[in-house]
């Protein structure tokens, strides 16, 4: 469980953590022992009382096995919120999966819920969004005459429905700047991270950090640039559809490729626009189908 792996890092950042499900203590004990979950509390809400009190009880799971179960709209809802394999009494009692971040007083400061039940933020992705430093997964380093590059990923391994991110740390060489969003209005080439499309892999818009204004005196232009080290972030969702599941089930690893386009300048010279190929290699974790406890005989 990734949250266990991040538990100490979260603690160092002052965040406690717990995972809540409707599983019995017995199931959680078996799961914890099998997955070596020693410090992260796995909480048993076996009558779903807390899940209901939080207001995130999955009512569609119940509806899917109720009198309207043949309603095409209910079937569609089941596919999205309950299971692509159809309704199942076993799923009744579960929440819509998601994460709350609260302050010391128990007030929500952030929350992460995805519409499709199979898609969810990795813990590392949540930490990024909270501005909490994540120990980076060793990336690929490179250097051009204009900058140093470090391509990293939030998670070494991904699985069906993972919402994670790829990062590119850029350190401009001394006296060098590259152009930030907004500079395109003045005719400059903004640094751009462009991933190649892969079926079943959804790319969110690249996130740029705040830039600074560079005053180019000869033209008296004020241009948004990056001169200090900065990071471009590409959020990625591995889709959770049955087709995506079939595709992913054949893979041990997933390579995502793309390129960085930029134009770098100093106070006196602008270099030709440059394009650098980039590669990220991710391990694919197949969904864990093993039960924590053997099912009782029917």
């Amino acid at each position, binding site marked *: 469980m990734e949250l266990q792996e991040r538990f100490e890092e979260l603690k160092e950042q002052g965040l406690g953590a717990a995972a809540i499900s409707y599983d019995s203590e017995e199931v959680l*004990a078996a*799961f914890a022992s099998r997955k070596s979950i020693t410090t992260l509390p796995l909480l048993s809400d076996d009558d779903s009382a807390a899940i209901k009190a*939080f207001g995130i009880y999955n009512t569609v799971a119940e509806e899917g096995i109720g009198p309207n179960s043949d309603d095409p*709209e209910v079937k569609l809802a089941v596919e999205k919120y309950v299971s692509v394999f159809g309704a199942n009494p076993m799923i009744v009692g579960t929440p819509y999966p998601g994460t709350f971040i609260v302050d010391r007083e128990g007030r929500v400061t*952030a929350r992460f*819920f995805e519409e499709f039940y199979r898609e969810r933020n990795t813990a590392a992705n949540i930490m990024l969004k909270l501005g909490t430093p994540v120990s980076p997964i060793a990336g690929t380093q490179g250097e051009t005459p204009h900058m140093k590059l470090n391509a990293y990923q939030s998670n070494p391994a991904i699985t069906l429905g993972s919402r994670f991110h790829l990062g590119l740390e850029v350190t401009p060489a001394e006296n060098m700047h590259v152009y930030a969003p907004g500079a395109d209005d003045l005719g400059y080439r903004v640094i751009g991270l462009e991933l190649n499309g892969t079926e079943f892999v959804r790319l969110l818009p690249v996130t740029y950090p705040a830039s600074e204004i560079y005053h180019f005196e000869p033209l008296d232009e004020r241009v948004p640039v990056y001169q200090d080290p900065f990071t471009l972030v590409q959020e990625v969702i591995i889709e959770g559809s049955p087709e995506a599941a079939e595709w992913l089930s054949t893979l041990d690893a997933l390579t995502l490729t793309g390129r960085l386009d930029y134009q770098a300048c100093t106070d006196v010279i602008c270099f030709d626009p440059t394009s650098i190929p980039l590669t990220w290699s991710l391990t694919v974790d197949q969904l864990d189908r093993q039960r924590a406890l053997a099912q009782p005989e029917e």
Partner: protein
Amino acid sequence: MMVFSLSLHSLHAQERDSIDVSALGPQVGELIPTFSLPDQNGTMQTLESIMGERGALILFHRSANW
């Protein structure tokens, strides 16, 4: 009678809104409910017991068993 029930059915289908999961449960700025639940070792845990110096992350997941 048959026609009546069919039209009711389609009305029901049309009126079904998709669920906005982001609107469910406590929103940013709101307090979460209190809880007291046993962990995998049988120890009772509350928001206070899991709390860090700055706050806490509470993950709701579907199941550890399937």
